[in-house]
């Protein structure tokens, strides 16, 4: 049913349709609306789930870990500092192979404290063993959450759906909400391969020494590698049922004849599509786009194949590995290990909610067309704050 919903409310509705057994979170901007809406659903009797507002994000992550360990479909949501406070448990959930689903409403990380959007929070925990999917708009957020439970439970690997804070969470957009029966057909009840059960005693979380620890990491890694095919297949199945639903691992737009290819994750793709269209129509500059939807596991081959025939690639991202470059850019370069690579440049933009305009994206493309040399640049900096002027 087509309706108009705030991003957070649309996500809450999608989560409700997935029939979670347990929802637990701690308030943090800009995530809070999601769990407030879920709590309202529980109160109204529209969602039959255990619901707890925890005393901290560490508590929230631990509670969903417990819920998942006993075989419940468990969901949480957070942002920024909350995600970082959860980190110890995040690694634990992944290492224990529990299929928790989480929404990360992407927000900048302290210090200085900043409640606005960038993607440093989720990118910073890329090595935790969670699948990380970035969505472009609220429709994709809805579709990706429903897929997330399928993917997580099939692989016994947790999934984090990353959506830009405010830009998506607080924006009202038309969304097509699936019907309950359709979702039920797509997402069967969770039947865990293992769980804590008094009738069939089982231990989770025991110490593993040098004799076997490395093999546990190897197994997670191999399953994460395998996850790429599962993510793609689940996406295709979803498309088969609902007629839409995301783009698997990556998506390409206008790359056939592109002189310059721009790459990014999340809601910025919408702005980039507008910029690319204008450049083509008004300036005759053929620019293509690659959207990275799946950040972990990293879709190395898909990205390699998508950009290997081009000379000039610019990665625009709202995060930075300080002292190096944008993280996505580094990983794209690594996809060309031992081969001739396109020139892949890193553009750091939009940190801490700094607006990224269509014109700024067009300028990145123009500059790359002029000079393809591989480089790292911040764009959109305020000159008045850079030159040591106090006050």
């Amino acid at each position: 049913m087509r309706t108009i919903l705030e991003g957070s409310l649309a996500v809450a509705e999608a989560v409700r349709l997935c029939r979670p057994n347990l929802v637990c979170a701690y308030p943090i901007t800009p995530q809070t609306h999601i769990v407030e809406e879920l709590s309202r659903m529980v109160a109204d009797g529209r969602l039959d789930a255990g619901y707890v507002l925890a005393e901290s994000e560490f508590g929230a992550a631990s509670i969903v870990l417990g819920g998942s360990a006993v075989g419940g479909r468990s969901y949480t949501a957070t942002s920024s500092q909350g995600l970082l406070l959860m980190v110890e448990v995040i690694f634990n959930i992944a290492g224990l192979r529990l299929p928790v689903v989480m929404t990360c409403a992407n927000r900048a990380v302290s210090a200085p404290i900043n409640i606005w959007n960038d993607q440093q929070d989720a990118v910073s925990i890329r090595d935790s063993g969670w699948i990380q999917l970035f969505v472009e708009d609220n429709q994709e957020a809805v579709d990706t959450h429903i897929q997330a439970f399928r993917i997580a439970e099939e692989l016994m690997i947790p999934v984090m759906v990353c959506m830009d804070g405010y830009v998506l969470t607080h924006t009202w957009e038309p969304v097509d909400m699936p019907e309950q029966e359709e979702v039920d057909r797509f997402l069967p009840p969770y039947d865990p391969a293992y769980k804590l059960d008094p009738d069939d005693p089982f231990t989770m979380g025991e110490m593993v020494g040098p004799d076997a620890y490395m093999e546990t990491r190897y197994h997670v890694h191999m399953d994460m590698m395998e996850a790429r095919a599962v993510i793609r297949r689940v996406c295709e199945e979803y498309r088969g049922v609902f007629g839409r639903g995301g783009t698997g691992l990556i998506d390409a737009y206008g790359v056939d004849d592109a002189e310059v290819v721009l790459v990014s994750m999340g809601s910025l793709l919408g702005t980039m599509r507008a910029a690319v269209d204008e450049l083509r129509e008004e300036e005759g500059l053929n620019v293509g786009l690659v959207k990275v939807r799946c950040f972990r596991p990293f879709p190395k081959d898909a990205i390699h194949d998508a950009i290997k025939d081009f000379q000039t690639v610019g990665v625009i991202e709202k995060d930075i590995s300080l002292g190096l470059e944008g993280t996505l850019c580094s990983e794209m370069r690594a996809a060309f290990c031992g081969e001739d690579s396109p020139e892949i440049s890193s553009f750091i933009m939009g940190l801490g909610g700094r607006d990224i305009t269509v014109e700024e994206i067009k300028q990145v493309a123009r500059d790359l067309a002029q000079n393809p040399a591989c480089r790292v640049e911040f764009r959109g900096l305020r000159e008045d704050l850079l030159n040591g002027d106090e006050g």
Partner: protein
Amino acid sequence: MISFDDYKDQEPAWCPGCGNFGIRNAFIDAMTGMGMEPHQLVIVSGIGQAAKFPHYVKCNAFNGLHGRALPVATGIRLANHRMHVIVMTGDGDCYGEGGNHFVHAMRRNVNVKLFVHDNQIYGLTKGQASPTSMEGMVTKAQPFGVMSEQFNPLAMAIALDCGFVARGFAGDRAHLAGLFVRAMEHEGFALVDILQPCVTFNKVNTYEWYRERVWKMDGEHDEGDRMEAFKMSLLWGERIPIGVIFRKRRPTYEERNPVISRAPLVEQAFDRSKLAAALAEFY
């Protein structure tokens, strides 16, 4: 002569009528009354409406992570215990997210003053129940009402033998200022839990609600009697006592720690030869 205006900083962004204004006024009254100058203080805060306090008062300020003001304050005291270190925090920040630090700071008895703006609600995130919200309170995030027992910071502090335990009310400026002065004068960790109406998100515990209940207990019990104090700390309902509930002089961490009891770390010379001696056994 230090005046009220010397402490004024940027204009607060709290809602008009917020209990935090009363706390700010009482705090500045207390500091000016003691002749304390802004540079002699450091105010440490975490996240929440209370945590904005050091932005709105001239002082040395440290605004850090949610729930983590007490460990930072402890670190400051360990490095330089000539500083007066005050933590301004709220019920969510201190009793929720940072609850473990609350317990251990009191055990340690580091000479930090803990002033908790207790509005019984999360204000910054717009109205979810906090650890001190009363049972049954319905919020956007607690649709069935709060189902947890209300956290009692005073009883917990007395159980941990905290040396200074008091409760104030943001609506009684002079009384609250007096509690701040006594807390500052106490040698050791001091807790002042401050009843603070949140005019926007807490429609239960309003100014009127508190005014009908608060009762100045000063002089009505023996502050040094732990059992009497404990009984007093349990009173919550028709009458809510405000004032100093418990007081006991315990040796502070700064006095007990042999490294800093002589002089603060910042005043101690760095003697490289001692380091070499300590490392020698590993060669």
